[in-house]
C-alpha cells in the first residue's frame, strides 16, 4: 500500500494525535509571529510615524540610531506596546482559568466584579481624595484600585472556601459584586465635580498611555510567576473540564485546585486593572478565541490564551491610534468595537464546537 493510497482511517490514532498537536503548536507559533508584527506596528504608529524597518533597527540596534528615535521608541512607545502585551496576556489568562474552574463561559475579571471593584477604588481617590495607603498618596489611584480589586477577589476566594458553596454560588456572588460596585461608583460620579467626573470616566474607559517600564515589569513579573504555576497544574485543570466527579476519580483535589487557581487569578486580574483602568472583553473573549483555535487541553490552551489576549490588546492599541490620526482613543472602548465582530465571525464558523 503506497502513501498516496493511505486514507485517514489507515493512520493510527496516535499518529493523528501527534499531527493534531503539531498543528496546534504551529498555530500558536503563528499567533506569536502576528503578535510581534502587531507590537512593531504599534511602535511605528503615533504623531510621528516610523517605518517597521526603523522600529526593528531601533529595537535591535539602539546604539546606532538618532536620539529622538531612541527616546520615542524606548521611552514612550515601547512601554505602551509592551503594556498592551502584558495586560492583555494577564487578563486573558485570568479569564481562561476563571472559566475553567467555575465551568462558566461568562466568567472573567469583568463579570466577577473585580474590575468594578477596581473602578470604585480609583473613583474613591479621584472624587473623594481617599488614599487607602496614605503613605503613598502619589500612587493613590492605582493603589486604591489594586486594593479594592484584591479585596473583591479575596472575598470571592473566602466565600468559595465555605462548606456548601458551589460554582453557581461564586458566579452569582460575582454578579452581585458587579452591581454593588457599579452602584457605588455611580454614587461617587453623582457627587463628583466636573473635573473629577471626567477623570473617573476616563479611568473606567481604560488607557495604556500612562504606561512606564516599571509597570510593564510588574505586570510581566506577575504573568511570569502565575503562568508556570498554572502550567504545573495543566493536566488537573484540563481534567476539571470533564466534571467534578470524573476529575476527582482521576485523583484531582478539586477543592484545593479551585482555591489555588482563584488566588492566582485574583493577582492576575487586580494588578493590570490597577495600572490601566477597566478594560473589559479581553478577559472574556481572549480565552474563547483560544479555545476555538486549540481546544481546552491546557498544554495548548494556556499559552494560546496568553497570546490571544496579548494580540487582541496589541491590535486594539494599533487601531486606537489609527481611527483618528494623531489621537489615541480609550482602549477599553476600542476592544469591544474591534473584538465583537471578530468574535461573532468565530462563533458562527465554530458553533458546533464552542462552549
Amino acid at each position: 500500500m503506497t502513501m498516496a493510497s493511505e486514507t485517514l482511517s489507515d493512520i493510527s490514532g496516535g499518529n493523528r494525535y501527534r499531527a493534531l498537536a503539531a498543528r496546534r503548536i504551529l498555530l500558536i507559533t503563528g499567533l506569536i509571529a502576528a503578535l510581534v508584527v502587531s507590537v512593531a506596528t504599534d511602535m511605528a504608529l503615533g504623531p510621528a510615524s516610523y517605518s517597521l524597518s526603523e522600529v526593528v533597527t531601533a529595537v535591535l540596534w539602539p546604539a546606532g540610531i538618532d536620539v529622538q528615535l531612541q527616546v520615542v521608541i524606548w521611552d514612550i512607545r515601547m512601554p505602551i506596546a509592551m503594556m498592551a502585551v502584558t495586560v492583555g496576556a494577564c487578563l486573558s489568562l485570568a479569564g481562561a482559568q476563571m472559566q475553567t474552574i467555575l465551568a462558566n463561559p461568562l466568567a472573567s475579571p469583568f463579570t466577577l466584579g473585580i474590575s468594578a471593584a477596581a473602578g470604585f477604588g480609583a473613583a474613591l481617590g479621584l472624587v473623594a481624595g481617599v488614599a487607602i495607603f496614605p503613605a503613598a498618596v502619589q500612587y493613590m489611584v492605582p493603589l486604591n484600585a489594586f486594593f479594592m480589586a484584591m479585596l473583591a477577589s479575596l472575598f470571592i476566594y473566602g466565600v468559595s472556601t465555605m462548606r456548601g458553596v458551589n460554582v453557581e454560588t461564586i458566579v452569582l456572588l460575582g454578579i452581585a459584586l458587579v452591581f454593588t460596585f457599579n452602584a457605588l461608583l455611580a454614587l461617587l460620579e453623582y457627587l463628583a465635580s466636573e473635573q473629577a467626573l471626567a477623570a473617573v470616566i476616563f479611568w473606567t474607559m481604560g488607557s495604556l498611555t500612562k504606561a512606564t517600564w516599571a509597570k510593564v515589569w510588574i505586570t510581566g513579573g506577575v504573568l511570569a510567576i502565575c503562568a508556570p504555576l498554572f502550567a504545573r497544574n495543566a493536566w488537573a485543570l484540563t481534567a476539571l473540564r470533564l466534571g467534578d466527579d470524573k476529575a476527582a476519580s482521576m485523583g484531582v483535589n478539586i477543592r484545593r485546585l479551585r482555591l489555588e487557581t482563584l488566588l492566582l487569578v485574583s493577582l492576575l486580574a487586580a494588578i493590570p486593572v490597577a495600572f490601566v483602568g477597566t478594560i473589559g472583553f479581553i478577559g472574556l473573549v481572549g480565552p474563547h478565541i483560544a479555545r476555538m483555535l486549540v481546544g481546552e487541553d491546557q498544554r495548548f490552551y494556556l499559552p494560546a490564551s496568553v497570546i490571544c489576549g496579548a494580540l487582541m490588546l496589541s491590535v486594539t492599541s494599533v487601531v486606537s491610534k489609527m481611527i483618528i490620526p494623531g489621537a489615541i482613543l480609550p482602549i477599553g472602548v476600542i476592544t469591544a468595537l474591534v473584538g465583537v465582530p471578530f468574535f461573532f465571525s468565530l462563533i458562527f464558523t465554530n458553533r458546533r464546537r464552542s462552549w
Partner: protein
Amino acid sequence: MVNLTLSGVGARYGKRVVLSDVTSNLLVNGELTAVIGPNAAGKSTLFKRVADLIGGAGVVEVSGAEAASGRICYMPQDTGVNAVLTVYESVLLAAKQGGDWRVSDQQLADIDNTLDALRITELAFRHLSELSGGQRQLVSIAQALVRKPGVLLMDEPTSALDLSRQIEVLTLIRHLAARMDMTVLIALHDLNHALRYCDNVIVIAEGTMVASGPVASVITEELLRDVYQVNARIECCSHGQAFVIVDGTVTN
C-alpha cells in the same frame, strides 16, 4: 490481582447519613459484582465511598499487588460534558493520570487499543459536545478502561446504550475483568443483565444493604417484591439462563 473488602461501610453528606452497613467480602478479582436497588437507594453513594470521594463509616480494604498503586477507578453515572476536547484527548487525560506534558507512544497505543476494543475508533477525533448520549457513555467507559484499574466501579455504564451495545459492552467488561484480573462493581437497573453477566450481587435499598451473595441465589421473587415493589417470576430459558419476568407492581 486485587480483592476488595467492605466492612460496615457507610457514607454521609455533612451530618446526614445516607448509607450504612454495607459489608461484602465477595469482591474478588476477575469477577463482576452487580449493585442493584431502586433509585436513590445509595448505589452511587456506595461507589463514591469506595472510591474515597466522600467520607463515612466502615473500612474499604483493597488488597493485592495493585493496591499499592491505588488503582481504584470510578466511572460516574453522569457523562454530560461540554468541554472543547476530542474523544482522543479525553481518553488521553485518563491515561496520563497527571504527570508531565509529554505523551508517550505507549500511552497512545493504549488509547488506540481501548477505542478499538469498544469499536469507537471512528469517534476518536470528534468533539465530546458532538456525541450522542450513548456515544458519550462509551467514551466514559474508554476513559475508565484505559487506566487498567485493579478495581473498576461503573455506575450504570450501559443506561444510554442500545441493546446490542449493552450486550457488547457487558461481554467486553466481563472478558477484561477475567483477563486483567480486575475487580468490577457495576450498578445496573436491568436485572437480567445482572443475572447474565455478574457473579455476585449487592442489593441496596433506602441507604442500607439488604442482601448480598451469588446473583442467582440473591435475586428471588421475594426480594423483588420487597425491594422493588413488583410481582415477578424467575424463569429459566432452554440454555439454563435465569431471567426475570415482571407481572406488575405490588399495588396492582
